[in-house]
């Protein structure tokens, strides 16, 4: 009886394998100690009582999910900040490198580059705004519960009912948002450089880089199978 209960609890906690293993061991020790402390002598009834006193596996898993969700959110936030910082640093490093290579803006390109930079700035701003709105919405859509009844309990309970593929979708949505942002910044940066560069050699490489980053982001956008 206790092993069945432990299996059920481990299944409910399957969203975090290491947590599931840890909790299973802890609860196993708890339940057998409760059985040992039971003075009735009837093993089966003692197990039943220990499980009843312990509570419903689903409810306990839901309480764990709240803690885990908070941790995941914090980690995701830190990861996002680090990624953005890394992209920013890479951009700065590349611009510094281009400056070090002593690129100069030719006079005939100055007027055109100014216009292109303005257009590009507004276009990039629009894309970043729309992606910022679409990314979290898509991620939130991934957390759709299997049954409406689970919403009534708590958000944690609904999180427990999320199938793995929905979590994968939400992860892909977040990755999509990040890659989109990276692509947008990358293209913006490269286009600015292109508009300011005068040397044919460097300019010829810019569309290639831009296309590569765009293609990479497009690959991240499309899940392999529909959820």
């Amino acid at each position, binding site marked *: 009886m206790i092993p069945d209960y432990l299996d059920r609890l481990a299944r409910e906690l399957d969203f975090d394998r290491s947590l599931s293993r840890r909790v299973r*061991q802890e609860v196993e020790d708890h339940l057998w100690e409760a059985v040992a402390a039971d003075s009735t002598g009837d093993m089966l009834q003692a197990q039943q009582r220990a499980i009843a006193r*312990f509570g419903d596996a689903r409810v306990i898993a839901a309480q764990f999910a709240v803690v885990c969700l908070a941790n995941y959110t914090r980690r995701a936030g830190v990861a996002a900040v680090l990624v953005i910082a890394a992209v920013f640093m890479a951009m700065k490093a590349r611009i510094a490198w281009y400056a070090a290579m002593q690129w100069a803006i030719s006079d005939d390109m100055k007027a055109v580059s100014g216009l292109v930079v303005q257009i590009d700035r507004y276009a990039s701003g629009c894309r970043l705004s729309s992606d910022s709105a679409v990314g979290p919405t898509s991620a939130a859509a991934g957390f759709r519960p299997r049954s409406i009844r689970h919403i009534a309990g708590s958000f944690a309970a609904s999180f427990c009912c999320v199938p793995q593929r929905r979590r994968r979708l939400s992860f892909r949505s977040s990755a999509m948002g990040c890659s989109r942002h990276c692509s947008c910044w990358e293209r913006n940066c490269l286009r600015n450089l292109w508009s300011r560069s005068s040397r044919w050699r460097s300019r010829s490489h810019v569309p290639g880089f831009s296309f590569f980053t765009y293609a990479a982001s497009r690959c991240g956008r499309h899940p392999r199978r529909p959820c």
Partner: protein
Amino acid sequence: MEGEMLKGHLDMIVLAALSAAGSAHGYAIIEEIKRRSGGAFDLPEGTIYPALHRLEQAGLLASRWMTADSGRRRRVYTLTRTGNRALVERRAVWKQFSDAIGGLLGGTRPRENPA
């Protein structure tokens, strides 16, 4: 006592029980809570583990695996220094709250807070 009433204070209850018991595993903490509350706190025993996990994540508790006499592995929890400080703060807040409610229900004025 009703479970819903206890849930809001579960962290403080666990911290207080661990402070009294020193190092203890989940079952021992529950027994300590029951003993010290005179059996008044009757939560589902499983509720304690998410609370322990949450408090550990917050740095208020530390834990380690030990092998019991039975040969089973068990996780033993200890209050950290931060946990001790948190407990002192929560005790002070609870005292204020308790005095205020006591004053309301008993019709007496709560003692003035010197701070």
